[in-house]
């Protein structure tokens, strides 16, 4: 199975940050991004590749540990792919599809 990318080999995604994570991404909640359909090794781009890509290209804040830890999103962040928990979709291994919506939300504890 190969990643669904467009003619230019790029995948267009909508990425959304909330629950405080938007502060790490120029205080902007919604981003339209276009990233390569294949990862560094020529494999189809996965959710793990997206997380690395966001960290290196979209995140201006230097506190990377606020977003990633041990090579994946840090504990306390839920990732939803098209409104469903990414664990239901394969987690890190999920292959990106054109127009996917990725929703990153940091959990809250206040009451």
């Amino acid at each position, binding site marked *: 199975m190969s990643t669904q990318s467009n003619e230019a080999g790029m995948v267009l995604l909508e990425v959304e940050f*909330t629950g405080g994570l938007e502060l790490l991404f120029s205080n902007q909640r919604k981003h339209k991004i276009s990233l390569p359909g294949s990862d560094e090794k020529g494999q189809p781009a996965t959710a793990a590749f997206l997380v690395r890509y966001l960290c290196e290209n979209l995140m201006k804040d230097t506190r990377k540990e606020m977003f990633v830890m041990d090579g994946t999103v840090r504990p*306390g962040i839920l990732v*939803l792919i098209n409104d*469903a*928990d990414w*664990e239901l979709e394969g987690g890190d291994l999920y292959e990106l599809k054109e127009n996917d919506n990725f929703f990153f939300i940091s*959990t809250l*504890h*206040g*009451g």
Partner: protein
Amino acid sequence: DQDSRPSYRQSKYQKYGRQMCMPEIGFDGQIKLTKSKVLIVGLGGLGCPAAGYLARAGVGTLGLVDGDTVETSNLHRQTLYLEEDVGQSKVLTAYGRLRQMNSRIHYERYDYRLTPEKAPKLFDQYDVILDCTDRQSSRYFISDAAVVTRKPLVHASALGTMGQFMVLNNPPSLIDGNAHQGPCYRCIFPKPMRPENSRSCAEAGVLGPVVGVMGIVMAMEAIKLITQPNSTPWYMIYNAYSKEPFKMLNLNRKNQNCVACSEKCTITRELLESGSLDYDEFCGGRINYDVL
């Protein structure tokens, strides 16, 4: 049966008629409410409106747990307290106010901060638990205690302009090991957030109506769980300043390796009650990160 006496029905109708005439509640639903026991852990911005609506709806017993006193900075969102209550016990103040709203139901007062050791015995006495607390460590031990006592858990939280809502452990885990059991808090958040990533209401603030909406949705869910116990768990986030403020999420996944609610669980009632599980340590990201 004394429940079916005309005079009994009539007195219920006068007080609760506006909810009994709905097919979703009805006379039978009102009787279920009258016999139900709901525990509210935390009487802050979530617990105040939740307690108020449940008292008015006529649950049988309302348990109130909190160890704090009322502060001026609570008043914008903690709707059971008045200016004159600053400095008073939250549980005792709430009790007085709730009794004025509905004097015919039973209240239990627990004027202390709940601990993992005490939670299972307390939860045993209730049908539905509402987690209205405000710390990550209590979120974990309340979920664990709900799992070991097999109680459905209504969970919500709020910060800034945002709220989160989840129905956890419904149907309760460990009853028959079937696939229909709902996830617990640890299924969704197996590892705690490090404290430096977590902001509190004192730091980040919280809007009164945001936490208020979440608290009332919790009360509604308790009523649903009592009157229609087989309803599907659901998950929602509320983002007050967004263009689409309410968003439903699909988080309904049970972790087959969950340390609390799976067949491989290592957290037991005995461990919780022994006090040997240090949840503050667990959430603080210090030593023995993964003992639990």
